[in-house]
């Protein structure tokens, strides 16, 4: 991890420039970045403004000027920027090469980023792009090989991602889980989804993607691996953790069918509309018992 050193307060015009950029209001952002470049301020901020200006030239919707972007990035690189700023520029240069059809050059940069800073989100972002770029069709051998390589890289990282600070690991797991799923490698797919649903949560990824991943795991155990008791565990997690999903009642039925929930456990959840009569029916019909 390469953190920036503390420095003087960022000029307001530069703050405004980034805000405009986030709203994709590129013309205004460009004006602000240019104004920031004319300031007599900390040289680091001048480099930052130059990177911003290059980004506007590269990513604006219309009238992109890739040559100017490249020139500005090069100027910053020549001034020996801080490590993360340099990595960021490499990341954008990889995009630039891709947009010009120079996949080899882009891959070189992405590989360099992965080798240098896979412990940071910049390197992990590069890994995501490399996987998508090189995986070929879903279900192909090459897609699985690419995923295998990424898994081994992630396993050897020296960071310890947590729910509070997951880096981009949940997202990478989701991508790799998809590759394994479509290649019918369900064990590997489950392993990746497990990472996605334990490291990620509704706030850091999204409510919908989390319950969808749990549902997929439940279905794989139920339909592909014929392990209903394990499927029940994931259906139960949907009921308990994602009661506002539109599949929660179906998951409840399944969790009861696979004996993953007792009646008292369901009652404790006080699910809207789930009356004692409905529960009696579910526990009688689905599992043949009413505890």
């Amino acid at each position: 991890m390469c953190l920036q050193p503390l420095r003087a307060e960022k000029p307001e015009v530069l703050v405004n420039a980034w805000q405009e950029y986030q709203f994709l209001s590129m013309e205004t952002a460009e004006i602000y970045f240019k104004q920031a470049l004319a300031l007599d301020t900390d040289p680091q901020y001048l480099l930052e403004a130059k990177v911003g200006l290059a980004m506007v030239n590269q990513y604006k919707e219309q009238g992109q000027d890739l040559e100017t972007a490249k020139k500005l990035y090069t100027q910053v690189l020549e001034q020996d920027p801080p490590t993360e700023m340099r990595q960021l520029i490499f990341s954008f240069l990889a995009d630039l090469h891709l947009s010009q059809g120079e996949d080899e050059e882009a891959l070189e940069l992405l590989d360099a980023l992965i080798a240098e800073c896979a412990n940071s989100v910049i390197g992990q972002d590069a890994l995501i792009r490399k996987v998508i770029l090189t995986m070929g069709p879903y279900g192909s051998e090459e897609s699985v090989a690419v995923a295998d390589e990424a898994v081994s890289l992630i396993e050897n990282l020296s960071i310890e991602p947590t729910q509070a600070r997951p880096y981009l690991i949940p997202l990478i797991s989701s991508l790799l889980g998809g590759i394994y799923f479509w290649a019918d490698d369900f064990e590997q797919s489950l392993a990746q989804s497990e990472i996605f649903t334990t490291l990620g949560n509704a706030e850091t990824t999204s409510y919908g993607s989390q319950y969808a991943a749990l549902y997929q795991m439940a279905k794989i155990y139920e339909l592909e691996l014929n392990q209903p008791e394990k499927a029940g565990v994931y259906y139960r997690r949907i009921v308990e953790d994602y009661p506002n999903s539109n599949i929660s009642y179906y998951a409840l039925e399944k969790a009861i069918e696979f004996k993953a929930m007792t009646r008292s456990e369901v009652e404790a959840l006080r699910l809207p509309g789930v009356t004692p009569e409905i529960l009696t029916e579910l526990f009688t019909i689905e599992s043949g018992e009413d505890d």
Partner: protein
Amino acid sequence: MAKSDNEGNSKYINLLGLAVLLVCYVGAIWNVVKAKRQEERADVIRIVHWQLELGVRDGLQAMIDKFEIYKAEQGQAVEVVQIPIPERAYNQYVTTQLIGGTAPDMIQIGFFPMEYLGRYFYPLSNEIQKPNPFIAERIVELSQKESLTEAEEAESEYLDILVDKPWMDTFRDGLRGQFRPDFQEYFGVGFSTFTVRMYYNKNLFKKVLGHDRAPSSFEELIDFSNQIVAYGEKENITLLPIASSKYQARVFRYLYLGEITSDLAREYDMDYNGVADGSEKLMAMLRGDLTPWNEQYAASIDVVQELADFFPRGFMSMGREDSGFAFVQGEAGMITSGSWDAMSYLKKIQDQPEESRFEVGIFDLPPISKTHPKYGAFADGRRSEAAAGTGFGFGITRFTRNFDLCVEFLQFSTTPQHNTELNEIAKWIPVVHGSVPSGFLKNFEPNSVGYSGDASFAVMTGGKVTLLEDQVYWPLISGDSTFETYANDLWNKLPPEAATDYKRMYQGSTESIPNRQARRTAYLANVVFGDQDPAARTAAEIQLQRSLQPLMQFQTSQKTLDRKMEITLEQIPDDEKIQEFNQNFFKALEREMSQ
């Protein structure tokens, strides 16, 4: 002479035009001056919405009045201006204001392109993860009271649970209704939720049926409707069992389609994500699993046809207001609509002469029982309302000069106490934990029991297949066509329309990638150039992750579609009709792709 008359008229028209222009000019200047003066004497926030239903403006105004008093007590002069705009003009108004950079501080989200959210609205994901401070204030307020009412005791229990929770978790749906998957961000905070039920005339039921009990099954719904028809014939009066227009018929269509085919949707779900999307329904068509002759799908049509016998003649050309009018006039036994119409119906009934007023009952659309002789075998269950999310949501625009004040107003309005009060006046359903719907509205509370998804033919929202399906479906329901004509028409015309939609889906998935890439780079740069305090850095990383999620989906969506198609092609049955459908589809797709 004629020439001179024309000249005179022309002069007059010119003068009139000039006068109109002058009035508009003065009006515009007056508006600007008024706004300036307003801003000089207070911090002004403007809030725009399209809810012109009875009570809603009053409910919102009650919050505004309270908030202004609260801020005044704190020594800050605040003015909140409510701007209701009719639904029809809303998109145009919002678009003009946003593009012109003159938009109000808060805008109700809807009726405008959702792409605007990323360009003109602040993401609120960080704000809603902090507790709502007004809950703690309310706890203090209640603790200072000598004794609490029963309602306050109940409220107090909820407040203790909610006080430390993130603001989003104080909403019954965790504010899911305001989450935008395309951006992986929350842009709005809302006040109400909505569900659909049947309203019925209790007085009429008593007179005709001898009781005012709501039907508990689909069979009873039909039975009660038959009795109403028979009574009308006997008494020689016009009496409708179910007041309906196309609007209401559509509600029945999708509710019963879901009830009968949601298990098919689960079957068609190839990636096991809990949803059969348009591409997966198309794959089901190519495999021959989903055809108009599929007995479950056909049964869903039968159900609506059976119900349509009790709709007024010519319901297809009637408007939603016409059917509502028939119901409030006491000419119909039942009507289906959402909770949003509750206040309007009740008010209109109340406004009638005493002898014409009647008591309204509410019931859930009756499910088809598993013992129903015709449909019982397909009855899956009602549609789940677990995801009935927070609606009536407001976003904060990037043009506001009072972002914190806007957030404060939204927080103020979404404590259990205030959310109850707003919705009590609006006669809508509150959404905050601990808020209580008024007696009548308890019937509308979302019910999580049930299923989601259905087996319609729609490949993409608003696509050509949907148009085609609509074209052939409604003549069938209104009795102008037969099922065989409908089924043959739909099946024969489907391949080229489905191919167009599939191509749009396939190519459209990549269209927004450049835009998403730009957003990704903004958040990546924010990680590097933003605040390097560990908490801020982590927040920036999480924001980056959220921005990457939809981008990644777009980048892999063509691969996903290719894989689904590859798997499907291995499963095409050796059936002449299905083979022909496939040939026509792929021929049309080839043509589409080459364009």
